[in-house]
């Protein structure tokens, strides 16, 4: 997103790995943790 | 031929290939696909079109001036909503969509200072400069704009013979209670007596999902599906609901277009799945005549079925409708 100098040193592969990890983490956070806990708090069913 | 020209040629070819099936499908209304797949393909096509536009514009360096882009975008939006989106949407919705598009296209042109200058500069030149091109386009503009307004006015004033639009409340507030076969039914609290699970107890809304999708008409079925079966008999036999509400409960029965308003489409996510079972019971039992004034009781062909069906038959046909469409009634728990 930004053109800073530090970024140039980081390899593409490293970025992809980190990106994938973050993608999985955000998926876990939203779909598993956030949805589940908020539905449970409301006493409603949520299958995932 | 230079490399750039080849690229441009391919881009145009791509656009043509893209356009052909769109036009074909626009007429055919879906062809081999069901509505869901069809709309997914269309969304995909639109995304692909945007992608190719980006390729042509930003990657191949074939920019269009903003002043051309704006009307072009507008026309594309219009074709999209008018032709590609099938079946045709009513004018009120089209006007709403195009209103949003018009505003947003203007916003798009004025997003940043450079793009606003790019957009407004030719207009300023057209209005200000004194050379022949500017003059000619000035005259043309001052002819076209009043001409368009005149055409619009003429269109508006032209007498029309279509039936007028009725703004009818589709889901009016129900009464607190109704009297069916000399029994008082309180709509807030009443329950469907045939919503019964395998253990003979009341089946909570949502729990009936396990019966969805199966065949209710094979020999040995659970209690719930037996009720569904009997409801189906009412729907297709005793009452003949399907004549209007359709074999697929989608409001497209053979008689449906003889009526105005047309029968309710239960397969739509905005009808029975938004309503309590007791609301549906009220509508089936009392029909059009018992609608409140805001819903124009005289403008509904729904008969008061309490005069032809028993209370139990009404409850069973409701079970059948929910089961068949795969929706759940509204609850407040």
């Amino acid at each position, binding site marked *: 997103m930004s053109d800073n100098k530090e970024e140039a040193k980081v390899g593409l592969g490293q970025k992809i790995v980190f990106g994938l990890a*973050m993608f999985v983490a955000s998926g876990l956070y939203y779909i598993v943790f956030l949805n589940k806990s908020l539905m449970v708090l409301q006493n409603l069913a949520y299958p995932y | 031929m230079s490399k750039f020209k080849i690229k441009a040629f391919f881009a145009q070819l791509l656009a043509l290939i893209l356009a052909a099936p769109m036009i074909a499908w626009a007429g055919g209304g879906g062809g081999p696909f069901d509505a869901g797949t069809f709309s997914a393909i269309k969304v995909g096509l639109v995304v692909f079109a945007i992608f190719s536009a980006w390729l042509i514009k930003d990657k191949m360096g074939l920019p269009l001036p903003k002043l051309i882009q704006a009307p072009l975008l507008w026309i594309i939006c219009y074709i999209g909503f008018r032709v590609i989106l099938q079946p045709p949407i009513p004018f009120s*919705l089209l006007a709403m969509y195009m209103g949003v598009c018009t505003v947003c296209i203007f916003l798009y042109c004025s997003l940043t200072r450079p793009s606003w200058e790019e957009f407004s500069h030719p207009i300023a030149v057209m209005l200000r400069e004194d050379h022949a091109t500017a003059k000619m386009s000035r005259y043309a503009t001052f002819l076209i704009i009043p001409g368009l307004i005149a055409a619009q006015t003429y269109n508006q004033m032209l007498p029309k013979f279509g039936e007028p639009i009725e703004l009818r409340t589709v889901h009016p507030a129900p009464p607190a209670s109704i009297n069916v076969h000399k029994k008082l039914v309180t709509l807030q609290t009443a329950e469907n007596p045939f919503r019964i699970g395998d253990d003979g107890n009341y089946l909570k809304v949502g729990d009936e999902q396990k019966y969805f999708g199966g065949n209710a008409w094979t020999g040995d079925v659970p209690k719930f599906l037996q009720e569904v079966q009997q409801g189906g008999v009412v729907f297709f036999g005793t009452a003949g609901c399907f004549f209007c509400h359709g074999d697929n409960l989608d409001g497209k029965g053979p008689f449906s277009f003889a009526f105005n308003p047309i029968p309710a489409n239960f397969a739509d996510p905005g009808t029975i799945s938004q309503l309590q079972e007791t609301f549906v019971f009220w509508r089936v039992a009392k029909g059009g005549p018992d609608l409140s004034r805001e819903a124009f009781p005289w403008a509904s062909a729904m008969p008061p079925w309490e005069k032809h069906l028993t209370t139990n038959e009404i409850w069973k046909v409701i079970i059948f409708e929910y089961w068949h469409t795969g929706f759940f009634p509204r609850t407040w728990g």
Partner: protein
Amino acid sequence: MLNLSGEKKKKVGAWLLLSMIGMLVLLPFAPAVVMAAEEAAVEEAKEPEKAKDVFYKEEGEFGIVSGPPAGELVYPDDYGSYGDFQSRTIIWISNQQHLYFGSFVLAVPMFVWVMELIGILQYEKNPKVGKKFDDLAHEMMKISLTAYSVTAILGGILIFSFLALYPGFFRYLSGIFKPVMHIYALLFILESGVLYVYYYGWDSMNDGNGDWKWSHLSLGTILNAVGIVLMVMANTWVSFMMSPAGVDAEGRFLGDIWKVMHNPLMVPVVVHRILGNAAFGGGVVAAYASFKFLSAKTLEEKAHYDWMSYIAMFMGILALIPLPFAGYWLMREIYAYRQQMGITLMGGLLAWVFIMQATMIATLFITVNYYLFQAMGRMPGSERYYKYFKVLLAILVVATIAWLTPHTLVMTPAELKAMGGAQHPVVGNYGVMSAKNTAINTMITTTVVSFIIYQRSNFKLTVPWAWKGNIFLAMLILGAEVNILFLGVYGYFIPANVRIGLSVPQVASTLSVLFIGVAVNTKMLKGAESIGEIRWGKMSVRGAYALFMLAVAFTWTMAVMGYLRSSVRLHWHVNEILRDNSPWAFTNPLGYAGNINSLNVLLFWTMLLFVFWLSALAGAGKKKVEAEEAAAAAVGKAVPAGSH
């Protein structure tokens, strides 16, 4: 002898002033004491008759009858009229205008208070910045002062309209609320007193961040507290009309005024109104600043008002974000109070008004984004982000289209037949709640993304983990959007009560982006290299117009939703207690309501522009004097410096 040094004098003075105001606070309770004594006397005199409350159950179900029944109002005896003109429209307009100005004078002191506090806190670090905020607060207060008298005039007009046109109804309402109404009126004395001391004492009490300044700020606290109490009191009358309590089925007052005030819808309406007022106040101050921005002649002035409009807009948006949730809660309480009322609002007679509101909300969010895009024109380095603007705008358009698609379409029978049914197989799916929640959450998320870009637009990140931060932010936003879409689609396949529950995680996803995203972004900007200072005053005029649009959209939304809240009572003055028997008890057609709402908005802005112009007039006079003095001083300093 006591030797009061300057500092001590100030302290004593401040304490004296505070204690005087403290005494004034007690004044309004005098009538309450009298009332209580009266009631006690009445109670002793005769055997009390008890009756059942319409709302309270179990504890406090029965109360002593202490008022006459509501009875049946008769037309024309209990109603006044001006010929054939709709009396209700007159009440409608005068009510709306009073409410606009009332909300304005309630909301502005809230901002002023916050601005003054920031000014004081900043004073230590940087007196210049502190003074900037202080001047801003002072200027806002100046507008509020003129608006205050307009509010009082409009309040008078409203009362006279009630007395002239709805005497029967007003007799009943004032019979129940008479102690509250008197306390209300007396509180106004206090409010005006505090307001005048607060405004006129601004300069003389200004000692940077010293004791006087803090006492001045506490005056502001009292001003706000009294303002909110006033608003809550007036609000109880309105919520009593919607959901009466503390009276029996015939409308007889049962002796406990607190039960009448604390009726079922009172608290949610109050919360919704305070938040709405704050958002509206921010919008109007932003409009004022843009008005001054557009008319400014020097770059310095332009810079000042550009900055002011940004601050005001920001405050307005802060109040706007929790507003939908307060509205959601109010709607839930309405459903819980009377399901019929809820259906009339959301699915029945008044459902179309919600489409109007939807249009306004979409306008609000698109405008905020557009303003942020324009505002980035004054940030050097923002050119890097120009290419993302159109993507964000495109997302907003798609969300708006889904957001606006109604479930019940307006169409001719011919169009209906061409469509093959009452619902469209594709866009018909956007007509239900799942799609609406998805759309609005997408719009808010997009706005947050715009804000994140705005924050970093004139900085170059220098933290070593910037690339990680960027990827984290991208995934946070992407994940939220995916989750919002997923929950939206999932909502079509489950029962309605679970579907409604899904809106909570949807909103939580949006808020995650808002809080985590902005926090991480701010952290990333720590020590970032500035590409250039913000060039205040260099925003395009389109940004200023966008803020004007924002403020007008706020006022229009208020008009529409106020109409909605009031007309949901249908043919009742006081729901299920006092029936409206005048010829104007019907619900107006949509077109008429839209026209009257637009008229209200127009009227309000006309008056407001007058108020703005007035404050500019005072400023112009002052400047002229200053200029003359400066000129005089320049002429060889021959003139002695009068009072200075």
